[in-house]
C-alpha cells in the first residue's frame, strides 16, 4: 500500500463526504466532481487506463455537468428553511454504518489470497485499448448492442419526461 494510494483514497473519501454533507447544493456538485476525479485516479492506479479515462469523460464531463444543470434549473442552491436532512437522519446513518461494518468485517476476515506466487499480486496486466475493442466487438458484442439500445431509450425517455408541457396539453 503506497503513499500514492492513501493520498488518492483520502481525496476520494473527502470529496464524497463533502458531497453528502455540505449544505449548499452547488458546493455538493463540485465536491462530487472531486470524488469522481479521485475515483478516476484510483482506476489509473489500478492500471485500468481505459476505465479511468472513461470515468473522467463520462462522470466529470457529463454526469457532473448534468447535475449542475439540474440544480440550476430547479433553483436547488437555495438552502431550505427547515434543514437539509430528513426527519429521521439517524435511521439512515445507522443503516449506512451497519452496512460499512458488515462489508469491512467481511473484507478483513476474508481468507482469500491473491493468485500470484505466495499470495503476491499478479504482474501488471498489459491490456491495450485494442484488446478492449476486440473484446467489445467479439465476446461482448451482444451486451454492447443492448447498452446502445438502453442509452437510446434513456435519451428519448429523458427528453420526453423533461420536455416542457403547456397547461394541460402535451
Amino acid at each position, binding site marked *: *500500500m503506497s503513499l500514492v*494510494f492513501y493520498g488518492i*483514497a483520502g481525496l*476520494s*473519501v473527502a470529496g*464524497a*463526504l463533502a*458531497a*453528502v454533507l455540505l449544505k449548499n*447544493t452547488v458546493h*455538493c*456538485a463540485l465536491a*462530487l466532481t472531486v470524488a469522481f476525479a479521485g*475515483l478516476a485516479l*484510483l482506476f489509473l492506479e489500478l492500471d*485500468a487506463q481505459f*476505465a479511468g479515462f472513461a470515468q473522467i469523460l*463520462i*462522470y466529470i464531463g457529463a*454526469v457532473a455537468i*448534468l*447535475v449542475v444543470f*439540474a*440544480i440550476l*434549473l*430547479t433553483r*436547488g442552491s437555495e438552502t*431550505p428553511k427547515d*434543514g*437539509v436532512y*430528513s426527519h429521521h*437522519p439517524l435511521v439512515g*446513518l445507522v*443503516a449506512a*454504518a451497519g*452496512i*460499512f461494518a458488515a*462489508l*469491512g468485517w467481511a*473484507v478483513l476476515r*476474508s481468507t482469500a489470497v*491473491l493468485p500470484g506466487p505466495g499470495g503476491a*499480486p*499478479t504482474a501488471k496486466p498489459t*491490456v491495450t485499448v485494442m*484488446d*478492449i475493442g476486440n473484446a467489445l466487438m467479439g465476446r*461482448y458484442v451482444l*451486451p454492447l448492442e443492448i*447498452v446502445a439500445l*438502453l*442509452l437510446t431509450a*434513456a*435519451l428519448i*425517455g*429523458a*427528453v420526453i*419526461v*423533461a420536455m*416542457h408541457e403547456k397547461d394541460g396539453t402535451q
Partner: protein
Amino acid sequence: MNPLTGYLLVAALLFAIGLAGALTRRNAILVLIGIELMLNAANLNLIAFWRYGPHPEALTGMMFAIFSIAVAAAEAAVGLGLVISIHRHAHTTDLDAMNRMKG
C-alpha cells in the same frame, strides 16, 4: 494488508457514504448524487478484482465496469429529467413534499 483489501475497504467506505447521503438528504438531486457514489464504489470493486484476480487478460471485470458506467450515465439522465419534471409540476425538489402520485 494486501493491496486488494485496501481498495475494497475504500469502496465499502464510499458505498456507505453514498448510502448515508441517499437516505438522509431531502433534496432529490442530492439523493441521486448519493446513488452515483454507490455505483462508483461498485465500479471500484469491479476494477480492483479485475486487477488482482487470476485472469486479468480475460477483461471480465473491466467490461463489467465499462457497462456499469454506461448504465449509470443513462440512470443519471433519466433521474435528473424526472427531478426537473417534478419540479415543474410541484415547484419543489424536497422529497418530503412529494407525497402524491397524481400530478
